[in-house]
Structure formats: C-alpha cells, structure tokens
C-alpha cells in the first residue's frame, strides 16, 4: 500500500510510509527542497492575499459597532463604559418583562415615582401624591420634559396605562394595572379601554380610581409597566415603537442615541431632564453585550468596563489583584416548591415536614454552593423586606429552624403510614440548567438518600421546558425562585394564594387565602405587617416550601467610579448616580 485512503486518519498514513519508502524519500531531498521553495512562495502570496481580504472585510464591517478604543473611565468626556448581559429584548415599557430591559428603562425613562440613591421612594414626574382607600391623586411637576423638550403631562400616563390593559397590546404585565378600576375587565375585552379608572384632570393632575384598596400603589407606580408614553409620538412610529434608538421618546436622565443591536448602545445625558440629583456622567457607553462572565472579567482587567460580576471561581483571582470586592443581595429567594396537588406524595404534610427537618439551608449555602454573596434562606420573606419601622425580619423573626433527624424520620414514618406505602417511589425533582440549581439538586439528592433513604430523581430541563412542566404540575418538587416586583412584603406574601397562577404547586388553604386577602386590603400598617408575620408562620407550619438560599451579587467596580448601585427592587444595576471620582487615587 503506497497511498493512504480515507480522509486523514492520523497515523494510518504514517504507518504506510514505513521503511520501504524511506530510501526513496531520502534520495529525493532535491525535490523536497525545490518544492519547499515553491511552497514558501505560495505562502507569501497567501499571506498577502489574506491581508488584503482582511482589509476589505474591515471596510465592510466598519459601521457595525464601537471602535473598541474607549476605556472604562473617560475623564476627559466624563463618560464610563459598561457591558450589558444581553440585548434588551423589549424597550417598549408597557410590554417589557425582563431584567435587562428594566436596567435600560430605568436610565432613559422616569415614572411618577422613582427610587433614590438609597433605594427609597422619591418624587419622579410627580411632585407629590396622595393614596386613599378608593384611589390616588398625583400632582405632576411642570419641568419634567421629554427628550424633544415638550412637558410630560398627565395625559401621557393615561395613554400609556390604557395601552397596557388594551387586549390588542397583549402586554404580559397588564395584571400590574389590575388594581386600577376596570383594568382586569378591559384586559379581558369586556370594556373599552377608555373605561380605565385613570383620568387627567388637567395637564398637571392625575386621578386614579382603585378596583380594591391598594395601599402599596406608590410602590407599584415605580415599576416600569407604569411608565409614561406620549400618544402623538407613539402613533407616529407605525408599530415600531421601542425597536430602535430613534423609535423611542425619553424622559429619564439619559437617552439612547445609538443602538447597534446585540452589539452596543450609547446613552447620552438628556438635556431636558429636570433634576440634577441623578445623571452625573455625561455618557454611558454600553460597548459590549455578552453574558460570558469570563469575557467580562477580561474586559474589566483590560480597563474596558467599569464593573463586572464575579462568580465564586473568580474570587481567588480577584483577591490576588487586590480589587475591592463588593456584595449586594439581588432580592431573589430560592426554595423547593412542593407539588400540593392531590395524589402526589408531596401533598402529604408529614412527608414535607420530614424533608424540612432533614436539612438546614446554611449547609447548602456554605458547604455546597459556596457563593460568598448568597445567604441561607430561612423564610419566604427575604432579609431586606421592610416591616413597620425597621426590617420585617427583626419585627417578625422567622421560625427557629434546625435540622433534627429524629423528627424527620418520625414524620417520614407517619407519612408512610398515612399514604399506605411500603416503600417510597422515587421523588421527581425538577431543576433548571443554571449551575446553582444543578448544584443544589445534587446536594439534596445525596442528602435525602443518606439521611432518609429516599430516592430523588433529578429532572434537569432548559428554561421553557421547565416552565411547561411547572405549569402542568409534572413534578414532585421544583427548584423555584421568586424575585420582587415592588418593594413590599406582598410581592412574596401573596405567592401561595389559591388564585395566584404563580402558585404552581397549587397549594390551597383557606387560612392562607384569608390572610392574603387581609394583607392586600388592610390600610393599617401595623395590622398589615402582623398579617405577613402570620403568613410567614403558616408557610413554615404547613411546610408550603423548603427555603434554600437568597441570591446575591459579588462584583468589582473600578475605583475611579463611585455611586453605582445594585439593589433588590427596580433595576438590578443602576448607573444613574455613578460619578467619576479620581481624588481617592
């Protein structure tokens, strides 16, 4: 065999080229030399042609992105450069539903009420407001302007809110406006959208009627679904509102002046913005859009972006660099959601209690997850929720839970008896494909096997498939999480109402429903917070969930930039108060 057949099976040809032809090759050095020279000539041609092609291609690509030379901090132009996790999918505020768009919207829009640097409610477009049992009144300032210079009026809110509940808009977050009178009926298509309980008394005064008492309405209007949209501008866009930088009209501290999809954005200061308490840097350059944490860390190291998120494997590296590492809670609580549907093993209280007492969330967080910014979850209500005067957690401490294997085994035996089982079948644990979920799932699988002799079958699914199974009730336990919509205990408190669609385990108890109804409508603050205390206790006593962890961020910020905020409600990262400060260097 002289010639190798087949496409490049390594070694096969090498073997075929054995001794018998060695002589021939050695005698042919002359040929090799000449051919080698010819090859070198071709190589030079090839490199030249490649260089020419690269040059031509760069001309073709010249206008599709940033020039890549911006540094993280540009003192001369008072600008900073950042990276976004993903292309904001929806910048039409009425239809937006995701965190990435939320970050952008928080910089380029402003609602009636806004959040200040310390995450407290502060006047936005509204100068002052009043919330009553049956409705609310907002008095708008006269110097809040759109980016074309026109004043933001009460009509802009009326138009925006009617649009959200209009069935034709098909806004996913329309339910945020259900507390407004007729909101739900309009969304169902039973009433015309003009019947919505909101009215512009004049340009400066907005009158809202409630469908039920909504004491937390001030916190609701700070949410982006309530942002204003101006009718004439919206209508002039032919359905492309929000699709590009010039298809939006802004009223926030910044406006988007350039937007190359999936590549870069440029936010410039809105010259018409009324307040000088935010928007300190003149330009925010979103030069990179990627969700690769390693790539962002490399960009940070190269001084190309001002801050980045650190995952636990990056921490040693970050410490070695002597960076100042910050932490913040992201507001989300993760827990086992049990399937309470009849017929499921997890619908048995004693079974759930057995699982609850076999573990302690601090072990999960400190031994398995090892994320510095995560906290062990001990309640449905996370650590940052406000109570009457201070933190809810101080006023109503969560039930004192400790692992107790004896109790756990006792409950398990009871469950076995009640269910009439000889052996427990495998328990299906539905999990997402995020690292933290998968680590938790395997951790609990081992734990319950060792401590209770239970077999857990982990069902890992990607995003939509997991949701499908959650909605269909195709699980015993699902690793679920809940992030806050507004800064009020109710955003967690009503999760296990029998009518809440988010209650995917279909937990149903009259006591819980009664407590939630009370929490929703009680105006008295003390009484209301006490109700949340009772809900917290009931969640524990009934083992509705098994709390796992509260998620946090570990991140580094360029020392020349101050005032970047990460917080639990509102945008996950806020550059509105960022300023360049070189004095500390």
């Amino acid at each position, binding site marked *: 065999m002289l010639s190798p057949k087949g496409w490049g099976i390594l070694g096969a040809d090498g073997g075929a080229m054995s001794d018998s032809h060695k002589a021939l090759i050695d005698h042919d050095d002359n040929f090799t030399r000449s051919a*080698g020279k010819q090859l070198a000539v071709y190589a030079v041609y090839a490199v030249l042609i*490649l260089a020419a092609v690269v040059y031509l291609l760069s001309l073709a690509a010249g206008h599709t992105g940033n020039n890549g030379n911006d540094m993280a901090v540009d003192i001369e132009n008072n600008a900073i450069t950042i990276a976004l996790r993903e*292309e904001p999918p929806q910048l039409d505020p009425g239809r937006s539903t995701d965190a990435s768009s939320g970050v952008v919207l928080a910089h380029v829009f402003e609602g009636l009420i806004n959040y200040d640097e310390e995450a407290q409610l502060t006047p936005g477009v509204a100068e002052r407001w009043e919330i009553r049992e049956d409705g609310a009144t907002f008095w708008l300032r006269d110097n809040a302007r759109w980016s074309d210079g026109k004043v933001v009026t009460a009509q802009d809110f009326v138009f925006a809110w009617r649009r959200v509940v209009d*069935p034709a808009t098909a806004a996913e977050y329309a339910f945020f406006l259900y507390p407004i009178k007729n909101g739900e009926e309009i969304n169902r298509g039973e009433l015309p959208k003009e019947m919505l309980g909101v009215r512009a008394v004049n340009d400066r005064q907005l009158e809202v009627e409630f469908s039920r008492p909504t004491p937390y309405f001030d916190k609701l209007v700070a949410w982006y679904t309530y942002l204003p949209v101006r009718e004439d501008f919206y209508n002039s866009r032919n359905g492309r509102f929000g699709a590009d930088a010039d298809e939006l009209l802004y009223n926030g501290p910044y406006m988007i002046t350039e937007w190359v999809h999936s590549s870069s954005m440029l936010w410039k200061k809105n010259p018409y913005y009324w307040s000088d308490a935010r928007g300190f840097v003149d330009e925010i350059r979103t030069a990179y859009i990627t969700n690769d944490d390693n790539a962002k860390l490399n960009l940070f190291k190269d001084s190309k972006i001002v801050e980045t998120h650190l995952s636990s494997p990056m921490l040693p590296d970050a410490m070695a660099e002597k960076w100042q590492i910050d932490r913040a809670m992201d507001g989300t609580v993760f827990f086992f959601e049990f399937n309470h549907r009849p017929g499921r093993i997890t619908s048995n209280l004693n079974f759930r209690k057995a699982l609850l007492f076999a573990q302690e969330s601090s072990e999960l967080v400190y031994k398995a997850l090892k994320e510095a910014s995560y906290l062990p979850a001990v309640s449905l209500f996370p650590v940052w929720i406000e109570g009457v005067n201070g933190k809810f957690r101080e006023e109503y401490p969560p039930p004192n839970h400790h692992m107790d294997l004896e109790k756990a085994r006792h409950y398990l035996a009871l469950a076995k008896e009640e269910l009439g089982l000889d052996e427990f079948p495998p328990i299906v644990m539905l999990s997402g494909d995020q690292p933290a979920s998968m680590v938790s799932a395997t951790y609990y699988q081992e734990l319950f096997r060792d401590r209770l002799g239970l077999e857990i079958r982990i069902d890992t699914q990607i995003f*939509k498939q997991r949701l499908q199974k959650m909605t269909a009730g195709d699980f015993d336990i699902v690793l679920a999480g809940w992030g806050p919509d507004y800064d009020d205990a109710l955003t967690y408190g009503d999760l296990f109402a029998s009518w809440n669609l988010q209650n995917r385990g279909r937990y149903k108890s009259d006591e819980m429903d009664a407590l939630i109804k009370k929490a929703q409508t009680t105006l008295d603050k003390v009484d209301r917070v006490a109700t949340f205390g009772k809900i917290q206790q009931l969640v524990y006593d009934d083992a509705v969930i098994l709390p796992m962890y509260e998620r946090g961020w570990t991140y580094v910020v360029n020392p020349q930039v101050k005032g970047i905020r990460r917080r639990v409600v509102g945008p996950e990262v806020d550059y509105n108060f960022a300023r360049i400060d070189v004095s500390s260097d």
Partner: protein
Amino acid sequence: MWWFIGKRLIQGLITVWFIATATFFAMHNVPGDPLLNDRATTPIIRANLEAKYGLDKPLLTQYFIYLNNIAHGDFGISFAQENREVNDIIREHFPVSAILGVLAVLIAAVGGILWGSLTALYRNRMPDYIIMFLVILGISVPSFVIAALSQLGIVTINQLLGINFLPVAGWGTIYHMLVPALVLGLSTMAYLTRLMRSSMLEIVYSDFVRTAKSKGVPPARIFARHQLRNAVLPVITVLGPSIAAITTGGFVVEIVFAIPGLGRFFVEAVQQLDYTVIMGTTVFYGAFLVFMVILVDVIYGFIDPRVRLS
C-alpha cells in the same frame, strides 16, 4: 451546465422546503412554547398573546400560513426580541457572521493547504511531527477553551505591553476580527491540514507524478501543477459545507468576544423556543448550506477537467 444548475436548484428548493416542514413540526412538538415566562400569565393575557402571534389557530393552518409567509420572504416577528422582525435580525446579523466566517474559512483553507503540503513534503520528519501534534490539539480542544485562553492571552499581552495591542472583545474594526476568526477557523484548519496531507501523499506516488519526474519536469513545476492542483480537490469539496458550518457555528466565539453575529440567535432561539427565529435562521442557513454545496459542485467542474457538469 445550465440544465445541471437548474436541476440542482430545484432539488435545493425541495430540500429547503423539507427542512422548513421538519423544523416546524419538530419545534411545535417540543414541550413548552415561547409565550411561557417565569411569571405565570393569566388566561386573559395568554389569550391576547396567542391571538397576537396567531398561535390560537390549528397547527396545520399555522403551517400553511407560515409557508405562504416565507414564500413571500416574511419570517415574522421574534418572540424574544418582540420589536424586531426576523428578516431584520438576519439582515443585520448575518453579515457579521459572514464576515467572520469568510475570514475564518480563508485562514483555515490557506493554513490547511499550506501546512498540509508542508507536512506531506517533509513527511516523517520534524516539521511533520510538530504540525501533526498541533493538528491533534486543534481538533480535540473545544473552541470555548481556545476562545477563553486566547482572550486571556490578549489581556496578558495588553497588560505586559501597557498599550492596547488588540481589543479583548467587541466588534467594528479589523483588529476585532483577527483573533476571533483565527479561533473560529482553527479546528477547520486542523481538519483541512490532515485532509490535505493524506491527499498529497496519495498523489506523490501516483503514476503521473512518477512519469513527470522521469520526463525531467522541474520539481517546482511537478509540485505546483501535478501535486498541489490535484491534492487540493478534496479540500475544495469540504470547503462549501465548512463555510456554512463555520458561519453557523460561531456561537461560542460570538459570546466570548461579544460579537453581534447570527450564530447567537441561532442557538439562543432554541433555548427560548422563539418559534419565528428558529424557523427563520434554520431555513436561512439551510438554504445557505444547499447553495454552498451547489456552488462547490460548479466550481469543481472548473478545477477538475474530468468532471463535466452536463
């Protein structure tokens, strides 16, 4: 010739229709749908959304509406990026992938042919061993490792030199393309090197080369005219599918280097079950692949005198 091209185009069209149909029904059979979200939607809101996207109609009706739409070149609106038409997404992001892909394929082809010839020429000697070792590395190390390592390399070089030698990520200038294209083309280059090497070795011992040698044809001429030209044919054959594979397979490189290419959409759409984008990118890439294969067949006719297209 024209008859051949026409026939192939019709076959291609049927292939694309088949791809579209298979994808459509496979996609609708995957559990879940694009309207599911972390936050449960009320029946009202869901009904409104279904009506908006036409998902409330029977599947077969949806299929015919869809076929009609793509026949008119309309791929619909993305579910994930709700304000963008799939046509716009392809129009804006495919050129980026294509530029990166063309560059990667060029680097891969030129490199593969040169290294392959070199190893064949110096077979069983040091250059051969070194290059073939690198080839094994290039084929077996996954691209996300190479991408991450090369990015770290850029950062380190920038820090050592104290200047912006090369950008770490992003898109827009010639400098942004070099490293990503190299990383993207690397495994193809390794594959082509191997292919070129074995193809060359086959020809080195063929009768016509021996005849040429004994006639006294100058070695450089034998190498260029007889060996290289013949050995390069299999490389050209796989080049067409390689272009398509590289242009669609840029997902990892696009994420790591923050490049706004279509490969990201192609992969993320499946995760998001973004029906319209899945269909749009699949049909588009399917058509692209079919076209590339036809193109290679035609080119083949020019290079190899034994192949006659008629």
